[in-house]
Structures are given as C-alpha cells and as structure tokens.
C-alpha cells in the first residue's frame, strides 16, 4: 500500500534521514521505533508532504506522492495525527473534528465517522463544545487522533500518540489503536514507547540516526537481544 524507497531529508545542512526504505501493507499496524532524533517524525512529515525530499521516492497505492503538497496527500487518503497534537486551540472540539473532514462532502459518511470517533473516545463527546486549548493533554491527544480519523483515511499516521500521557491513558490509547486497526484502517505508528508499540504492531522498523537499523515482525523484535538492550531497558 505504502512504499517508501531510500528517502533522504535535510534541515538546512543537517541530514535528518539518510536513506530510509519501508513498506506498509493493507490492514497492518507497522511501527517505527527509535530514540530521540532518529528521524521518526521526519519520516512521517515527509510522507504527509510537509517536508521536501532530497532523494528517494514515496509511492501510495501505486502512485508517486512525493513532491505533492500536504493537502494533496490528504486527498489521497493519508491522514496524520502529528507530534505534539497540534489541535486548533481556539476552536471547539466539534470544530476541530469538522476540520478533520475538511475535504469530504459526504454528509452521511461524516456523521457516521463522527459517531465512531465519539464512541472510541467518549471523553470527547463530553467536551464537544469546549475550546480544545483548555483541555488536558490526554484529551487533546484523543482529539488529535479522532480528528485524523474524521478524514476517513486508508492509511493513518500516528506520531507519538502516547507522549506525555498518564500510564492509564497510555494503555487506553494503545487499545484504541488496535480497535481502529480492527475496524479496517491501516496504521503507521511512530513511538518512543517501544514495548507498547511492539505489542500492538504486526511489523516494526528500528531507526537509528537517520537509518533503518533493524526490521521484522514485531514479535521477533521484542525478543531480539539487540532491541531489548537498546530500547526496552533490558
């Protein structure tokens, strides 16, 4: 479904990713793990068209999408819940969700997806008229994921959905990610919480300073001594 081939991205003179290739198949949860500054978020931002590539290619459902603008990538069916949540703070929860469906015109489909999101995150239903900027970090994270789902994506990119959350909420977010996947959405998940990510994912890529260091089935990687040592605190 998504094929990233040898992409390179630089910020000024600094090479943030030096040649990453990865693949996401339909129906999967694939996770990108690695330490801070490994290039995980940069990879997602490049896929979403927010960063220009220095080289390589990105193909989605057989079509090149590198070089497309951010809004064109969304139109292809790739939605992202970005790092740091980036919800619209001065708008209500309801308006934020509406913006997630900005490109859609199917009123019924939007209503169904809205119901689905509020079912996944009942907390958002309670806060529907509240200004998003006044909510807690966990609620904002739910909104960010919910907003991305409102675009009815074929591929959902999640960037650090568990960052800064209380442990109870972390578990809840990962349960929800599994649920979203079971409802038919393919997911590419970036996480620092490697263990939790490997537990929900089918396959995983381990990034280190802008390169792919390891890849394979999530289950195999959990028990891989190199991964355990570097990322799982064992």
């Amino acid at each position: 479904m998504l094929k990233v081939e040898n992409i390179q991205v630089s910020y000024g003179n600094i090479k943030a990713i030096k040649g990453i290739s990865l693949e996401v198949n339909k129906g999967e949860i694939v996770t990108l793990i690695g330490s801070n500054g490994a290039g995980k978020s940069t990879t997602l931002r490049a896929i979403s068209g927010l960063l220009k590539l220095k080289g390589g290619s990105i193909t989605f459902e057989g079509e090149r999408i590198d070089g497309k603008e951010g809004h064109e990538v969304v139109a292809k069916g790739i939605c992202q819940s970005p790092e740091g949540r980036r919800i619209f703070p001065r708008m209500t929860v309801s308006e934020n969700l509406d913006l997630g469906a900005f490109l859609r015109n199917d009123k019924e489909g939007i209503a169904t997806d809205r119901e689905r999101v509020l079912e996944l995150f009942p907390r958002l239903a309670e806060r529907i008229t509240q200004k998003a900027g006044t909510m807690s970090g966990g609620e904002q994270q739910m909104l960010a994921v919910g907003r991305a789902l409102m675009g009815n994506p074929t591929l959902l990119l999640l960037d650090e959905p568990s960052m800064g959350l209380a442990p109870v909420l972390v578990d809840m977010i990962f349960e929800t990610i599994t649920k979203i996947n079971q409802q038919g959405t393919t997911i590419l998940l970036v996480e620092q919480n490697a263990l939790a990510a490997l537990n929900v994912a089918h396959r995983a890529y381990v990034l280190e300073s802008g390169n792919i260091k390891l890849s394979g089935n999530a289950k195999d990687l959990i028990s891989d001594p190199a991964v355990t040592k570097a990322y799982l605190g064992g």
Partner: protein
Amino acid sequence: MAGVTYKTRQLRRRYIERAFATIAVVGAAFWLIANLIKSPTQFFEVTFTGLSNGILYALIALGYTLVYGIIELINFAHGDLFMLGGLFSAHFITLWFGQSVPSAVGWGVLALCLIAVMVFCATINVAIERFAYRRLRRAPKLAPLITAVGMSFILQFVGLRWNGSGQKIWPSLLPTGNLSIFGVRLPYTTIISFAITIPVLLVLTYIVTRTKQGKAMRATAQDQDASRLMGINVDRTISFTFGLGGALAGAAGLLFEQTRGLTSYNLGFQLGLIAFTAAVMGGIGNLQGAVLGAIIIGVIQGLNDGLPIGLGQQWSNTVVFSILILLMVFKPTGLLGKPTTEKV
C-alpha cells in the same frame, strides 16, 4: 517582610491606576455632558460624522487585521491599496463612464464601480502576496516587513504617477443635502456610506464564520502545518485572505472618493496609519476588535473636531494617539485581543 512591602506597593499602585482611570472617565463624561447641554443637535451630528468616519477606517483596518491574523505580517502596503482604490473609482466613474451628477444611471455606475474596484484591489493584493511575500514566509520576520514597506512605496509612486503630486477634486454621484430628524441634520452621503459598509461587513462575517473557506482561514491562522494535515490548501487560503482584505480596501477607496470628492497619492499613508492604529487598539488579528477600534477612533475624532467645547481639529490626532498609548500601557493586547493559551 519584603513580601509585605511588595504587596502594599502593588496595592498602592493599583489604587493610583484606578484613581487615574476614574478621573479620566469622569472628566470625559463631564466634557460630553457639558457639550450635550450646550448644543444637543451639534452633539448628535458630530457623533454621526464620527461613526461614518469610523466605519470607513473599519473597512481598511480589517485588511490589516485579516492579514496579520493569518501570517503575522503588518502589510504596510495596505493603506496605499486603499489610495489606489480611490483613484480607480474616480477614473472609473468620472472619466471612463462620464458620470458627474446624481442620477439613475449614476447609481448603476456606482454599483458597477463598487464591484470593479473591489476586484481591482483584491487582484493587486493577491498579486503582491504571490510575488513579494510568499517566498519570504519562512524567512526571518524582518524580511517580509521591509518588503511590505517597499511595496508601500511602489504603490505610492504608482499613485503619484496616476494622480499627479497634488490633491485632485472629483464630482460626487451621491445626493447632497441632509436628512433632518428632530433638527439633527444627517448628510445623505454619510447615510449612504452606512448603507454600503454594513452589508459589506455582514458578508465578511458570514464568509469568515460560516463558509468552508472561512473555516480554512481560521485554521490556517492558528496552525499552518496542522491545517495542511487537514487537507487545507494553505497557499490558496492565504491568497483568499489577501483578496478579501484587498476588496475591503477597494470599497473603502470608493467610499472615500465619493464622500470627500478628492484623491491624493499620500492618502494611503495617512488613513492607513489611522486604520492600523484602530486594528492594534482593538487587538490585532481580531475582526470585531478592528471594527470596534475603528469606530472608537472615528467617534473620538468626530467629537473632538466638532464639539463647541473641545480642543479642536488640530489636536484630534494627539488625543487619539494619547488614548492609544494609555490603552497599550494598561492592556497591551488591545481591547478584544487575548493572549493565546496553548498547551504543548
């Protein structure tokens, strides 16, 4: 102990501030009442004049605040765009359509001119953004700012070439005379400015709050990258905003030219500065604030210019800017501006 003295000092300062504010408000009220008693008709007439100046400022102020709201740029060229709008209207009505007195045809030409001048100024503003500002969007803030100053000069010299160096007087298609209500004379020209401005402002409010494009504008103003992730075409949204601001400046240009009957190449600088002040006073980036600030400035000017007991016209700008400075000292975000609360 140090904490206590700090607290008392804070309290004392607050009392002094309150006392000053009370004195200022009571003084202003006293001044207004004295004038109202002395000459009620004149009081209402100058308030009305002030209001009509205020809504003209509002049309221009909105252009500053719209653009600032979306890309945090003070578009210095905006006042000059208004000036070009006035020049365009004068040529359109008087030279191209040969209208110089109120008539049925004149009304038609006026309506046509309103549309034409809005399109004209919107196009220029969109072009300026496309060619001068867009490339600088990720540059340090000073680069687009100085570019805007440069654009202002360019437009001013276009105006100088088009209009000549002096003021030019033009005939008006608006009926002269006054509507008299209880002895208060309200000029038809002012009534017509209201009749044009208020629907324009209502349409703007509708666009920003109710349409998809307006939603895209508000989202882009808050977070450009997040807006891209929603599928919003950020470049087009910014273009649209410049177009909207330009159209309002065009309408203001036509109104000014028709109500005052004059054009001049440096009008943009003078009125632009007042309108920019209004936008800051109301809280830059806030649409209602811009209208409120503009009306307050217009009314203060009107009252000070026209009341029998007052400082008189030559002090009007001093009064306006003194109030602005006081307001900025005590409420730096402007009347309706709010400091943003964002959690990261």
